[in-house]
């Protein structure tokens, strides 16, 4: 063990050591202060970039509300004196009408940013949807064994066949009622082929026409006829209704044709016939047929879009033959996704029907004709069927009111925007 006998001079050594330690501490404190200053500056700029990125999300939503085909900014957009943002929009792996917006905020600019922040939001732009599952200006005919989930509404007579079920569109929804809006001859005729009508409790059948026999009502063609055929649900029956529920709708052609024409579209100038077994690529566009179109059997619709017939003449303006559907579900041979497609006929002269949908068709969208729409057997529709004239629904058809698979501009029913998520990347 080393023993230092001579301790003189140790004070100098200790003083120098202490001074050195204090110096190191002082220098460290100075550097710490500088670091904190830089950190705070960075934080301030970063927070500004976050507000700019959030502004980009709002910008994207605004553009999507104008056109759901919006893809994003081609180059960064300046925002005030503070910075710039860039926006991209994607629908990959998103449900129908959901858009993933990614926005990056740059301070002070995108070319040489001091700070960047990126946020991502998913928004659901719900197209304006008419409040009925089936609606027609001059009447609706429903055949046997049909299920309708949602309201039936017409200014004309509604004729219901055997074993018809009227149900709410979803669990907890309040729809599933029947309304007719004009005179006595435009009521509801129930159980036309001897069968029954099934409804849910708390629903109603309302008609504006008085129906007692002394006034000529309560026949097959007048008033609310054969209420006794209602087997379940015990709906409220109101004859001579004067409430707003039976106000006549101005139009059962709810498509805003001008808005539709302004969407990204492909125009087909001649009558077009798609051959069996082909795939029609919708590509998030409106496909405008000025002379009508026919899709033969076993046609697959790929993607989302709208088929629109604007004019022409013949038997059918828009005809879907049997087995028309979306792509095959992976791992489930013979099972197919519904087609995310709107079928719209806004003009032309058609002796058979504006829209003819044959058997085994599965569609998620709006089906809108100007004079007559016909849906044949084994058709499944999630959306709305409407007509400026009449609608005929044949046996074993299921119609469920709901959100359309692809945006379609409507005149009287505003769309809604719901922000589903917001997070920073």
């Amino acid at each position, binding site marked *: 063990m080393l023993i230092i006998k001579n301790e003189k001079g140790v004070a100098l050594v200790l003083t120098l050591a202490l001074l050195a330690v204090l110096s190191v501490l*002082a220098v460290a*404190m100075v550097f710490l202060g500088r670091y904190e200053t830089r950190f*705070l500056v960075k934080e301030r700029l970063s*927070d500004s970039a976050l507000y700019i990125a959030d*502004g980009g999300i709002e910008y994207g939503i605004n553009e999507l509300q104008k056109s759901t085909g919006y893809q994003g900014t081609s180059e960064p957009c300046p*925002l005030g*004196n*503070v910075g710039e943002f860039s926006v991209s929009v994607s629908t990959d792996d998103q449900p129908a009408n959901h858009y993933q917006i990614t926005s990056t905020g740059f301070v002070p600019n995108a070319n040489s940013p001091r700070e960047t922040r990126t946020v991502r939001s998913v928004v659901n732009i719900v197209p304006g949807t008419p409040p009925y599952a089936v609606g027609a200006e001059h009447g609706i005919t429903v055949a046997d064994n049909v299920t309708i989930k949602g309201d039936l509404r017409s200014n004309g007579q509604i004729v219901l066949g055997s074993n018809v079920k009227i149900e709410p569109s979803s669990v907890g929804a309040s729809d599933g009622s029947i309304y007719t809006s004009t005179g006595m001859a435009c009521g509801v005729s129930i159980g036309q082929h001897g069968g029954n009508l099934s409804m849910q409790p708390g629903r109603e059948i309302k008609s504006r026409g008085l129906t007692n026999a002394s006034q000529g009502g309560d026949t097959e063609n007048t008033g609310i006829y054969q209420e006794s055929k209602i087997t379940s649900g015990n709906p409220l029956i109101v004859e001579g209704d004067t409430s707003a529920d039976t106000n006549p709708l101005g139009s059962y052609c709810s498509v805003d044709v001008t808005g539709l024409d302004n969407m990204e579209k492909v125009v087909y100038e001649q009558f077009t016939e798609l051959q069996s077994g082909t795939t029609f690529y919708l590509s998030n566009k409106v496909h405008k047929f000025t002379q009508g179109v026919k899709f033969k059997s076993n046609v697959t619709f790929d993607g989302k879009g709208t088929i629109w017939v604007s004019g022409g003449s013949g038997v059918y303006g828009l005809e879907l033959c049997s087995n028309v559907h979306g792509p095959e579900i992976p791992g489930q041979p013979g099972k197919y996704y519904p087609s995310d497609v709107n079928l719209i006929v806004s003009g032309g002269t058609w002796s058979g029907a504006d829209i003819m949908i044959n058997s085994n068709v599965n569609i998620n969208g709006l089906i809108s004709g100007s004079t007559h729409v016909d849906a044949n057997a084994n058709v499944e529709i999630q959306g709305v069927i409407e007509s400026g004239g009449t609608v005929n629904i044949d046996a074993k058809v299921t119609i469920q009111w709901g959100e359309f698979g692809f945006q379609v501009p409507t005149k009287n029913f505003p769309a809604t*925007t719901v922000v589903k998520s917001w997070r920073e990347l």
Partner: protein
Amino acid sequence: MLKYNSSLFQNIHFWRSSKAFTYIELAIAMAIIALIVLGFTQVFLRSAVSITGMKFQTIAYNFAADKMEEIKNEPFEAIGNPWYPNIWGTPDQIQAGNTFTRNVRVSGLESSLKRVDIEVIWTEEGQNRSIEISSLICDKW
């Protein structure tokens, strides 16, 4: 003196032979310490000024961010009223060891899109300082 210095370098018991520090040695030591202290004081003062500046910036930023959040939570139609469109709103102030003045401007870019700029101004070391944040708000259907 030479003889003394010679013994200084030869004699390992130098301190034992020293009687005390000379005035010159004390003066040099004090001068060195004074220089060191002065240098550190300068650095500390500068840091203190910088930290105060940062404190003001943080207050100013929070003052601006509070307003931005408040505006974002308002209905779209109410944003900017009653001074909409396109003018600075009535400024408001806070005192936090300094006076911070906040200006808000709402610009209607489109009928469904508004730009909000918020600026906070204060005085520091006799100079005007400011920060500004901006964002967009759209009218969601």
